[in-house]
């Protein structure tokens, strides 16, 4: 397994947000973490990359226990993280944004150059010198994914990559994620949009109120209408 998470418990102050969350992803697999607003998707990702100070449970990435590590150490092991709010450096150009994400090539993980990423997202190629702040939401989403790929990760956590995007851009995102999978990358996405998740994922988890309520293949989820109705907004 690339990523293994068991018994994750996370707190914000006194609020107990995650209870016993588990999640795994194999090499080259695309896994979806589905759930409504406030279900705990972002918190799960943030806990995995060490951004939630009060958090316990097993977190193993590529055979290494990452539970006590600092965020940058976890990321340097090859675990890429694309936050929900994109967090583009608005004062930096597209190329400079990519430069910040750059890390040395890593064994067993696909290597990305700026040019590879411009192939993946042709829109970006036309705006290398543009400031991050002067880009549309869709372009920023492409940039934030590319920036994380510059670190040559072996697994990426993508927090709601389709959020707030036009259907055409969402389609482009799906293509890009399938392309990433083809390169041998593992991808964990969080989603509310089941249709988008279905396009690209092999397996899915459903999270609700900080607990995993379902865990199975995409086909199994399709067969269980009552679970979808109970936990996902349609």
């Amino acid at each position, binding site marked *: 397994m690339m990523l293994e998470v068991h018994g994750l418990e996370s707190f914000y102050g006194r609020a107990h947000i995650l209870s016993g969350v588990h999640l795994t992803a194999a090499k080259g697999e695309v896994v979806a973490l589905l759930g409504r607003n406030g279900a705990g998707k972002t918190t799960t990702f943030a806990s995995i990359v060490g951004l939630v100070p009060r958090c316990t449970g097993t977190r193993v990435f590529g055979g290494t226990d990452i539970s006590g590590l600092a965020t940058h150490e976890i990321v340097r092991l090859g675990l890429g993280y694309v936050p929900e709010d994109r967090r583009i450096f608005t004062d930096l150009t597209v190329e400079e944004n990519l430069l910040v*994400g750059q890390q040395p090539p890593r064994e067993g993980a696909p290597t990305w150059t700026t040019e590879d990423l411009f192939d993946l997202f042709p829109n970006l190629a036309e705006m290398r010198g543009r400031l991050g702040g002067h880009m549309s939401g869709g372009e920023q989403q492409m940039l934030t994914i590319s920036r994380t790929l510059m670190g040559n990760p072996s697994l990426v956590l993508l927090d709601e990559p389709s959020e707030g995007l036009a259907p055409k851009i969402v389609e482009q995102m799906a293509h890009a994620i399938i392309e990433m999978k083809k390169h041998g990358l593992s991808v964990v996405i969080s989603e509310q949009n089941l249709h988008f998740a279905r396009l690209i994922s092999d397996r899915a988890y459903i999270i609700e109120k900080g607990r995993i309520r379902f865990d199975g293949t995409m086909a199994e989820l399709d067969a269980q209408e009552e679970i979808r109705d109970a936990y996902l907004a349609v």
Partner: protein
Amino acid sequence: MDFLFIQFLNGLASASSLFLVASGLSIIFGVTRITNFAHGAFYMLGAYMAYTLTEHWSGALGFWGGLLAAAVAVAIIGALLEIILLRRIYQAPELFQLLATFGVTLVIEDLVIQIWGAEDLLGRRAPGLKGSVDIFGQAFPTYELMLIVLGPAVLGLLWLLFHKTRWGVLVRAATQDRMMVAALGVNQARLFTGVFALGIFLGALGGAVQIPREAVHNAMDLQIIVEAFVIVVIGGMGSVLGAFLASVLIGELNAFGILLFPKISIVLMFLVMAVILVIRPWGLLGRPESHARSALGTAERPIRPLGRGGRNAVLAVLLVLLILPVFGGSYLLNVATEVLIFALFAASLHLMMGIGGMVSFGHAAYFGLGAYGVALLVKFLEIPMAGGLVLAPLLAFTGAVLFGWFCVRLTGVYLAMLTLAFAQIAWSIVFQWDAVTGGDNGLLGVWPAPWASTPEAFYYLTLAICAVGVMMIRRIVFSPFGYTLRSCRDSVLRADAIGIDRQRIQWLGFILAGTFAGIGGVLFAYLKGSVFPDNISIPISVDGLVMVLLGGIQTVAGPVVGAGIYKALSIFIISETEFWKLILGTLIVILVVAFPQGVVGFAVDLFRRRDPDDGEAGEAPA
């Protein structure tokens, strides 16, 4: 005309030095969000190091190498400081960082005197640049020409560093979003250390290049730090180009201000800053903080009235204060009176910053206006003490009305700098308006009425006034007005959104705080029998800040206790040892690291943990 041109060049030369220091301060602030009060101390250290190295190393290489080596050495000290101290307090509210770096400043000041002595040192002249060149028939020192070039050259190098190297791009990214930089695998800690070292290097270089121009002395730090802050704020915090423009502005202002407005030359810089901040609240090239961060981090824990245990402690302290004259001599009573006055002063500052969210670097203004108010009333109207006590705070009140009106238009560090500007304006009026204020000589003969002139009587009078004052402040804190004031502090946006007239509420808070500080000043004038410009100067403001932060901002009692501890400690340490700055500075640093909640906050936490029912759960006044 020629003379004016030479003066213009002089302005540019001093602008270069200012730029070196201010750019370092600005870079450090931009990335680490630390307002590095110790920057001036590192500037001074740079000058001293350069002095020593250039004395030992001969020749041109020795001189220039000495300047550079001095800056590098100081930068290494800075990096160590970052690793040992600042890393522990990045999460702390920004004022605590300011306090810690203030402690460091005190330590360095004392060390400098221990190592290099208290006398001014005259450094070597620069080999090859000792002469002067002829410009329009006037001799202009070559060294100054070199400085004129140095500023833009450093600006260019910094631009290259920040735009053409990955490290520089990382720094710019971290200026904007540190968390995201970490989430991309960058070791923030190392980046911060590097940035801090770079900033200190620039500051120390600024000091090192001064040695052929002026004597090296142990008060260089305070002089430069205020100017550097002003420049950084005018330019926009975190903007290097802004710092450059502001340096030229201030350099020229200093060069020509002396000629055009000799009477108000000292204050000119602050006037310009005040005007710029009112027009452009984020400085020339700065930009608003994306998410207005609370300077004090108070939002996490609401202020609550003391519980039963706390109230008993207050009563016990009051009792001790009441019977103090029985066993204390007149020296002790004098000290106690002074402590009481500063307790009121600190409580008033706490009302402004802890409750009102307006951090003041210039609270001395209202203290000093109170003191001068009474001295002027005595001098010109021969008003007796009863009248003085009532009328003199009016001057502080008026000052607060006037200054506050401008200040509440800003927030955060910018507001703090504007308060400093006004305080400096008040100070220089007092300092320069000889005919009325006596200037440097102050005003003498402000004595209490005969019935209050014994130490005991005056002590009781002070105790009564200060106790009532603190009680009133407490009333205000827990009144509906106090709650509204706090909601303005906690969220500017929300307060604006629900229709609270934030600026008016804060203005009122500002005026109240200023008036209480003024009452403290009035008492202080009567205690000392005289007033001096010192009573309205920066150290008084800094003392107030230290007291409030030391005691803790989460309780009304905090600042009062902080005042007691700080005043008593400094009086005691000064009388016991000549290393008082060293000891006090170290203590401040330790206290900040050990008790980020302040002393009283720490004690309250301790009791609340033991007995969670102590203290009302709600926020109702006790």
